[in-house]
C-alpha cells in the first residue's frame, strides 16, 4: 500500500516539475509577499488580550539554557537584551545605551547601560545584574550560551551603569551574540530565589511580565508596570498558545479564536491572503535549509573525521553532479508555492557580508551527467536521503529524488521522526540528510559551528583549512569589507567541497486578524508585540 502510494506520488512529480518549470514566474501570492512586512502604524486602543499561536512548545524560559526558536519569540515580549536588531537587521542598543566600545586591540568591550531600568519583579537593572547574568551564562554547566560567549574571559563592573567585557581574542560577533539570548539580562533577585528553576519563574526587563505557564498548552504574560517605555504598551495581556498543527493554526485564525498565528504553512498562505478579515505579514529569511552530505563524519561530530564509504563521500565530482542536478527555483515553486528564497549561500539575501556579485550555479544536467561519467561509478548511484517525516519535507525529498534521477542517482528517501533523524546526523549514521539552521544575525553564527573542524553542528564532518582559517579570521575583524571578502572565499570553498548543498532560505508568514496593528516582524522571524494592539 505504502509502495503504491509512493509510486503514485512519484508519477505525479515529473508532471509537477514540468508545469512549474514552464510557468517561469512566481505565483501571484509569492509576488505580494516578498521582503519584510511593513509596520502597520494604525493607532491602537488601550487594553485587550492578544492570543498568539506558536508552532511548538518552548523549552524552559531560561535565557541561559533555552534553545528553541519559539522560546526566543516569547522572550521578545518579556526579556529584553543588551542589543536588538532593527528592520534591516542592523544591531541597535536595547538595554545598553550604545554599541560596545572596543579598545585594547579589540580585546576589551565597554558597554554603557541605560539608566533607570527595572526588572519585572521591581528590582533595579544595573551593571552588577549584567555581570551576574553573563557570569551565569559562562559558568552554569548546562549553559547553552557559553559557546556563544566563548571569547569572554571576565566581566568587570566599572560603575552602576557600565560593564567591561574582557576578551581572549578580538571577537566581531560579540554585539550580535548580545542581541540574542546571551544578552538577556535576568533579575539577580529572581536568580537567587529560584536558581536552576529560574525558567519556571522568569523575571527580566520587558514590556510584559511572566504570569503563568501551563505545560504544552499556553504561556500568559501581562503588561509590566515596571517597563521603562510602558506608555507604548497597549495590550493588557499576551497569551501564547501552543498549536503545533499548521492547518489547525490557520483554522483557529479564521475562526477568530486566536488573533495571531506564526509560521503558517505555505500551502495556506494563498487562501488566508484572500480572506479580508486577516492579514499576512511576511518575515524571516535568515534561516536556511539544505542537504548535508556525510563526507567524513564516521563516529559523531565530536570525534575525529574519518573515511565514509559511500559514492558521494568518496567522489567530490559526484557531490558536484548531485548539486548540479537540482533546480532550486523549481523546488521553490513545486514545494513552497514560490514563497521561499532559493539560494546557495548560508547567508541571507541582503546580508552586507555577502558578495553582491556571487550567483548560484543553475541546474546543468549535461555537466552533471559528464561528472557522473567521469567518476567511473556505475549508475544508478545509490544515495540515501534522510529527512523529517512530515508532508512538506517528504514532498521536497520526492522532488530531489526525481531531479537527481535524471543525472544518474537513485535517491532513496528515508523519512524519520525528528529527534531520531537529528541523532543520526550527529552520530554520522547517514549518507545525506535534509536539515537546516534557524539563522543568526552575524554570519559567524551561520557558518562557524556548522562547517569548521570539530563544530558541534558540522554533520558533514568537513575539515578544511581554507574554511577554518577564513571563518576564524572573519570573526577577528570588525571591518565589514574584510569580513565580506573572507566569507566569500569560505562559501566558494564550501561550494567546491559540497559538504552542504544549500537550497533555500525559509520565509515565515505571520497571520493576524485585520484589526490587529503595531506588530513589528523582521527577517529574524520573531514577532515583537510591545506596540501591538487592536486598531481603534
Amino acid at each position, binding site marked *: 500500500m505504502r509502495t503504491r502510494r509512493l509510486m503514485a506520488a512519484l508519477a505525479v512529480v515529473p508532471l509537477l516539475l514540468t508545469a512549474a518549470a514552464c510557468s517561469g514566474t512566481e505565483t501571484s501570492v509569492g509576488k505580494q509577499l516578498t521582503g519584510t512586512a511593513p509596520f502597520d502604524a494604525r493607532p491602537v486602543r488601550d487594553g485587550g488580550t492578544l492570543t498568539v499561536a506558536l508552532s511548538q512548545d518552548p523549552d524552559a*524560559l531560561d535565557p541561559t539554557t533555552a534553545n*528553541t526558536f519559539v522560546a526566543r519569540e516569547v522572550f521578545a515580549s518579556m526579556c529584553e537584551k543588551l542589543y536588538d536588531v532593527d528592520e534591516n537587521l542592523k544591531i541597535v542598543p536595547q538595554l545598553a545605551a550604545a554599541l560596545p566600545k572596543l579598545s585594547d586591540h579589540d580585546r576589551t568591550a565597554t558597554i554603557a547601560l541605560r539608566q533607570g531600568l527595572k526588572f519585572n519583579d521591581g528590582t533595579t537593572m544595573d551593571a552588577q545584574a549584567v555581570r551576574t547574568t553573563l557570569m551565569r551564562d559562562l559558568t552554569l554547566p548546562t549553559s547553552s550560551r557559553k559557546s556563544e560567549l566563548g571569547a569572554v574571559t571576565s566581566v568587570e563592573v566599572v560603575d552602576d551603569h557600565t560593564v567591561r567585557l574582557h576578551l581572549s581574542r578580538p571577537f566581531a560577533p560579540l554585539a550580535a551574540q548580545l542581541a540574542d539570548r546571551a544578552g538577556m539580562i535576568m533579575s539577580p533577585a529572581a536568580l537567587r530565589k529560584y536558581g536552576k528553576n529560574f525558567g519556571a519563574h522568569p523575571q527580566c526587563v520587558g514590556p510584559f511580565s511572566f504570569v503563568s505557564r501551563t505545560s504544552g498548552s499556553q504561556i500568559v504574560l501581562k503588561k509590566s508596570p515596571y517597563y521603562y517605555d510602558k506608555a507604548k504598551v497597549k495590550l493588557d495581556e499576551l497569551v501564547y498558545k501552543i498549536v*503545533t498543527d499548521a492547518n489547525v493554526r490557520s*483554522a483557529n485564525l479564521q475562526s477568530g479564536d486566536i488573533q495571531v498565528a506564526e509560521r503558517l504553512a505555505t500551502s495556506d498562505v494563498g487562501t488566508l491572503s484572500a480572506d479580508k478579515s486577516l492579514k499576512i505579514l511576511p518575515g524571516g529569511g535568515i534561516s536556511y535549509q539544505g542537504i548535508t552530505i556525510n563526507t567524513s563524519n564516521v563516529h559523531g561530530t565530536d570525534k575525529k573525521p574519518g573515511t565514509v564509504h559511500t559514492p558521494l563521500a568518496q567522489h567530490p565530482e559526484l557531490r558536484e553532479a548531485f548539486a548540479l542536478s537540482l533546480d532550486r527555483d523549481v523546488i521553490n515553486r513545486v514545494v513552497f508555492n514560490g514563497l521561499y528564497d532559493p539560494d546557495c549561500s548560508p547567508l541571507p539575501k541582503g546580508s552586507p557580508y555577502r558578495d553582491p556579485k556571487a550567483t548560484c550555479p543553475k541546474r546543468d544536467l549535461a555537466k552533471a551527467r559528464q561528472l557522473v561519467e567521469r567518476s567511473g561509478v556505475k549508475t544508478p548511484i545509490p544515495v540515501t536521503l534522510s529527512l523529517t517525516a512530515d508532508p512538506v519535507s517528504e514532498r521536497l525529498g520526492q522532488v530531489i529524488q526525481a531531479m537527481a534521477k535524471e543525472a544518474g542517482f537513485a535517491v532513496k528517501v528515508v523519512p524519520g521522526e525528528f529527534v531520531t533523524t537529528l541523532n543520526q546526523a550527529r552520530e554520522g549514521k547517514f549518507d545525506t540528510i535534509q536539515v537546516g539552521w534557524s539563522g543568526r544575525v552575524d554570519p559567524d553564527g551561520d557558518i562557524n559551528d556548522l562547517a569548521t573542524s570539530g563544530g558541534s553542528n558540522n554533520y558533514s564532518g568537513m575539515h578544511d583549512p581554507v574554511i577554518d582559517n577564513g571563518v576564524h579570521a572573519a570573526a577577528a575583524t570588525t571591518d565589514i569589507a574584510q569580513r565580506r571578502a573572507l566569507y566569500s572565499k569560505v562559501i566558494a570553498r564550501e561550494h567546491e567541497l559540497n559538504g552542504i548543498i544549500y537550497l533555500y532560505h525559509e520565509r515565515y508568514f505571520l497571520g493576524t486578524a485585520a484589526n490587529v496593528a503595531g506588530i513589528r516582524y523582521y527577517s529574524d522571524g520573531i514577532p515583537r508585540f510591545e506596540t501591538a494592539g487592536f486598531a481603534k
Partner: protein
Amino acid sequence: MGWYLLRRLGAAVIVVLIASVVVFLGVRALPGDPAVVLAGENPTPQVIASIREQYGLDKPLPVQYFDYLKHLVTGDLGQSTQDKLPVSQILANRIPVTLELAVLAMLVAIVVGVLFGTIAAARRGKFSDYTATGFGLLGLSVPHFWLGLLAILLFAVKLRWLPASGYVPFSENPAQNLERMILPAVVLGTGFAAVLMRQTRSAMLGALSADYVRTARSKGLSGPRVVGVHALRNSLTTVVTVLGLQLGGLISGAVVTEQIFVIPGFGKLTVDAVLTRNYPVIEAVVLVTVVGYIVVNLLVDVAYAALNPRIRLAGATNG
C-alpha cells in the same frame, strides 16, 4: 468479595512494578539521546555531559531505575526536562482534562451507540437498520484528525457556532467549558459510538430471540417495554465489556483529538513528551495509563455483578 478485591489489588501492584521496569527500559531504548535534544543548537560535549549529570543519565541503568523507584514511592515523579515544571503538577493539570473529554465522549458514544444499536436490532432489515449500520461503518472508517478538521471548518470557521479550539476549566466557566468540549467530545465519541452501536445491535438481536423475551411478549407487554427494559438490560453486559475494552481506544483517540482541538490533556502530553524524549513525563504518563487500565478493568468486573446477578465473582464465593 473482599478477598477477591484484595487479590486483584495485590496482582495490580505486581503489574505496576513490571510495567515500571518495561517503561523504564523501553523509554531508554528509544533512539535519540534526551541530553542531545536538551542541548539544542549548542550540543557541545561539555553541555551534553552536564545535562546527563543533572538528570542522572550518566549513572548505570540499575542505579537510575532504583532512583526512579525510590522517588516514585515517595510520590516524586521528577521534573519535566522540557519546561522544568514538576511532573506531578503537570499530570494533576492534564488528567482531569482528558478524563472530562473521555467522559463526554463516552456519553456521546453511549447515547448514540446504544440508541442506534437498539433501533437497528428492533427494526432489523428495515431502512433504519441500514441507516444505523451505515453510520457504524462510517464512524469506524473516518479518521479522527480528518473529522476534527472538518468539524472545525464547518462549525467554527463557516457557521461560527462553536469555538475552534482551546480549553476553559469547568470550575472557571462551566458554559465556556462545555462549549469548547462539544466538538472534541463528538469527534472522539463518533468512532466509539460506532463500535457500541454494532455491539449493542448484535447483543440485542440475540436477546430479542431469547425465550424470556418471547414470554414477555406473550404476556402482552408493549414492544418498547420488551425492547427497552427486558432485552436492553440483558444486552448491557456486552455494552459494559466494550466500554472497558475501548478505554485504550479512547485514550489513543484523545491523543489525536487533543492535538487538533488544542486541549491540554493527557494525550497531547504523551505525544509532546515522546517527541522531546522527556523521560520523566513519558514514564509517568505510561504508569498512570497502566494504573488507569487496572482500575477500569476492576470496575468493569464489579459492574458485571451489579448488572447481572447470575455472574458470580470467583473471589466472592471464596470470601
